Structures are given as structure tokens and as C-alpha cells.
């Protein structure tokens, strides 16, 4: 049976509903997860597919250059730009480009950009230091908020190990209440209640309380597990989830992917505002 988010339960652990529905003109969704293989790319691909299905305009940035899944799977279906953040100066350029896109200005080549208001950035593993520098030295979050009317959502995909928890604590230490938080329990690593290091962390509890007082959204969702053979089939063929659903060769892949995506959308439905989908009906 499909898993349904239990809202009553969710309310205990997460912050006010009104905060989630606050609409910002522009939103940047940053998918982080400091370890490789935690499910960042899968989540980013799920979000990209959701945007496409909802006909929601967005621009994707794939900063995971060594394993650029977003480009590989979705590059042909929507605008995804590769971004090597490890190369010095590139993150500054990214910020400039973001600003130009928001305002629909001309780019470096004199091409007028269409005005965009939703951005999806997937960060590579081990990029926390760069992110921190970017936030601290460039005042990224303040500038984004004050000059560009843009709110950032930090998506943190977690596994069951304590590194995941530490990463979240660390992220909060330099982002504070200036971003919205979305924690994603990747059920590939276990059942929902098995994320004990996260669920029982005192520090996380304090962070949640602090954010709640400041009315900053902190939500958590589950990402369903996609059975290995279906995952591998999409991977081997660089297929989007939609293509996996539409291909006819393997009925098992079709069924598994269809059910996975439906489940994925059900999970993110309660937090769609954090993903820039406030006014969009998720089917």
C-alpha cells in the first residue's frame, strides 16, 4: 500500500503550516548531502520530474560534475546547466547568472535571458566548505533575500549514519533561519523509524525548536525506495522517470517507476511550497 504522510504526527516534529505556505517571488532549491551515494541525485531527479509534469518552469544547475546525473538524465528535457563549483570563481559567476536570470537580463554574450523564478541546484559530495564560504564570505543568503527576493530551501538527503546528522547541524550553523529546511529520509537505507540517529538527536531537537520560534520551516519527508533493477535500467539507459514509465520493453520497470513517482509526489505534496510549487496541484 502507498505510504501516506501522517500530518498529525508531522505537526509534532515540524514547524508551523503557515510558514510553509509563505510565497516568495523566487526560490532556489539546493539539494545537499555531503556523502556520495546518499540519494541526492535521485531526489533532484524526482523534483525535476515533478516540475516537468506540473509544467513548472525552472532552471537546474548540476554541480556534481564527476557524476552529473541531472544533466545526463534531464539535460535533454529541460534547462540544466553544469556548474563546476570547485573551480575558483565559478560560484561567483553562478550567483551573477542567477541574478540575471531572475531579472531576465542579458547574459555575458548579449543574449536576453527569459525571466526565471525557480532554480534547482544539486551540490556535489564534499562541497560543504565551499557552500559555507559562499554563504559567509559573499553574504549569499542576505543578498538573495534582500536584493533578489529569493528564498533558499536547503534539502538535506540523509542516510542512517551519524554523518548525516552532523552535516545537518553543520549546515544550520552557518545558514541559521535564513533558509528553509527539508530533510529527506531516503528509505533505501531503511524504514522510516530506523533513522534513529536523526530522530533521537538532541541537537536536532534544539535546532527544530529554535527554528520553530523564528517561524522558519523545518520539514522532513520520506523518499521511497526504487527497486534495484528498475533503478539500474533507468541508469543504464539514462532515462528520466517519465521515460521509464513510458517504455514498453520491461513492464516491471514501467510498474515500479510509475508507483515510485506517484509515491514520491505524495511525499512531497505537503511541502511543495518549499520546492516552489505553492500554486501547483501535484497529480
Amino acid at each position, binding site marked *: 500500500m502507498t505510504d501516506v504522510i501522517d500530518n498529525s504526527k508531522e505537526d509534532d516534529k515540524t514547524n508551523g503550516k503557515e510558514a510553509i505556505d509563505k510565497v516568495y517571488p523566487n526560490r532556489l532549491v539546493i539539494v545537499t548531502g555531503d556523502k556520495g551515494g546518499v540519494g541526492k541525485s535521485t531526489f533532484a531527479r524526482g523534483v525535476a520530474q515533478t516540475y516537468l509534469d506540473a509544467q513548472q518552469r525552472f532552471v537546474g544547475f548540476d554541480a556534481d560534475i564527476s557524476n552529473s546525473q541531472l544533466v545526463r538524465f534531464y539535460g535533454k528535457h529541460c534547462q540544466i546547466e553544469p556548474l563546476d563549483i570547485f573551480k575558483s570563481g565559478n560560484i561567483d559567476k553562478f550567483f551573477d547568472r542567477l541574478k540575471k536570470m531572475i531579472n531576465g537580463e542579458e547574459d555575458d554574450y548579449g543574449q536576453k535571458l527569459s525571466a526565471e523564478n525557480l532554480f534547482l541546484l544539486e551540490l556535489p559530495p564534499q562541497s560543504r566548505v565551499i557552500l559555507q564560504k559562499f554563504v559567509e564570505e559573499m553574504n549569499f543568503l542576505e543578498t538573495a533575500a534582500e536584493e533578489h527576493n529569493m528564498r533558499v530551501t536547503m534539502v538535506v538527503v540523509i542516510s542512517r549514519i551519524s554523518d548525516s546528522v552532523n552535516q545537518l547541524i553543520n549546515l544550520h550553523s552557518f545558514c541559521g533561519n535564513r533558509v528553509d529546511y527539508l530533510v529527506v529520509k531516503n528509505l533505501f537505507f531503511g524504514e522510516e523509524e530506523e533513522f534513529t540517529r536523526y530522530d533521537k538527536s538532541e541537537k536536532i531537537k534544539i535546532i527544530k525548536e529554535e527554528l520553530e520560534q523564528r517561524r522558519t520551516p523545518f520539514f522532513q519527508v520520506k523518499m521511497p525506495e526504487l527497486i534495484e533493477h528498475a533503478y539500474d535500467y533507468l541508469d543504464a539507459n539514462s532515462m528520466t522517470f517519465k521515460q521509464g514509465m513510458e517504455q514498453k520493453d520491461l513492464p*516491471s520497470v514501467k510498474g515500479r517507476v510509475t508507483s515510485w513517482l506517484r509515491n514520491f509526489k505524495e511525499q512531497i505534496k505537503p511541502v511543495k511550497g518549499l520546492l516552489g510549487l505553492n500554486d501547483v496541484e501535484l497529480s
Partner: protein
Amino acid sequence: MTLNSPKRLIMTVGDSRVGKSTVTKLLIDLWLAQGRKIRVYNHDNFYKLKAYVNLVEIEMLDFFKGDTDKILNDLNKSELDIIMVDMPGQYIKKICEYIEKVELFNILLEYSWRLTFLQPISHRIDCIHHLNELISYATNQANYIVVKNYHFDNRFIEYEQSMQKKIQLIGGREIELPALHREHYKSLEKVCKPYSECCTDKSIYVIYRTYIYHWIKKFNNSVLGNAMTSKYLGLA
């Protein structure tokens, strides 16, 4: 010989030891007699269908390791008419979850297959709970066949009181597996040949063979005597 479609996926459910593999074997003989192209999957015990390994493709699956998805990929094989799967019958909830996870009903529709659940029952009540759960879940997205197995008892009071009406309402059908004397059944299993060949197998005592012959014939009549029943079981 090409026979009328649609193709049928038949899942046997229910506890082991109520006659699932016996019914499966009897049906395999019928399908082969009608020239049906079939594939058989087993989640339970490969050995039970050993007598048929040279006649049909039989594959063993581990339900809890995701092997069951293999069955779905057969729905794409145009040469097949029938897929027979022995489901791990005691886990009805898991089966329903599985159906949900692989979008089975939609997949069947898309590839033009129909689904029949086949459950042998005895006089015992727990058989009926399984069936009830299954019908509540799958409703009219599948067809249902109840096999009354007379081996244990010739009365099915629990079934008649609590399930029969529901089965009838949803268009389900009953068939009968007649009782076969324990000794006759034992000799039948012992030769380890397809049932259809056992009637002429000289190693079985001739009187036993006569009983076996009539036992098979009665079952076949019960299946073929009703057009809807035959249809649900992929037979003409």
C-alpha cells in the same frame, strides 16, 4: 493453434497443503492439451512440480528478494498465453502491497492481460479469510475461482456461510477437486509423471488407475463444464 485472447495471469493463493500444486498440475495438463503456451512460476517448493519440468518452463522465485518482477516482464512476450504463479499464499497483505508497488492492475490493462486468483479451500475457516482480504483489495480488477477440495471434507459450511455470496456477487466461480483416496494419490505422486500420463502408467495398480482417471475427468468436467470458468482459467 492460436486461441482466443486475452492472455491470463493466474495466481494461486492460500495456505500450502490445501491443494495448490495438485490443481496447478491438473491445469497444466489441460492447457497443454489445448495447445496453450504457458509459463509456471513457483514461490514455494520447486520439487512439487518436478513431474512437469520437461513439459513446461517452471521457475523458482524468491518473493522477498524482488524476483517476482520477472513475471511482469513475461507480460511483454507475445508467444505466451498463460502465466501460472503460485503466490506465497499465507502473506495476503504482502501480496496486496506487491500488487500496489508494481502497479499490477494498470500494467495488466496496458499489456492486455487478465488476472485470475485461484484459491483451493478446505472446510477450514482460515482459507476463507485470505480470500476475503484479497477480494476486498482487488475487487473487480480480477476474476476469482474457488476450488472446493473434497479431500479434507465434503462440507464447506464456513465458506458457504460467509463467502459464497460474495464470490457470486463479484462474478467468481467455483470448481470442484474431487476426493481421491490417500493410497491412490500416493501412487500417483510416486511415479513422478504428469498426471495425464499416469492413467496409462503400468507401474500403477490398474484399479488405482481407474480411480485416478475418473478423478481427473471429474475435475476437468468441473472446469470445462462452464464457459465462464474456462475463460477465467484461460481455456477454451
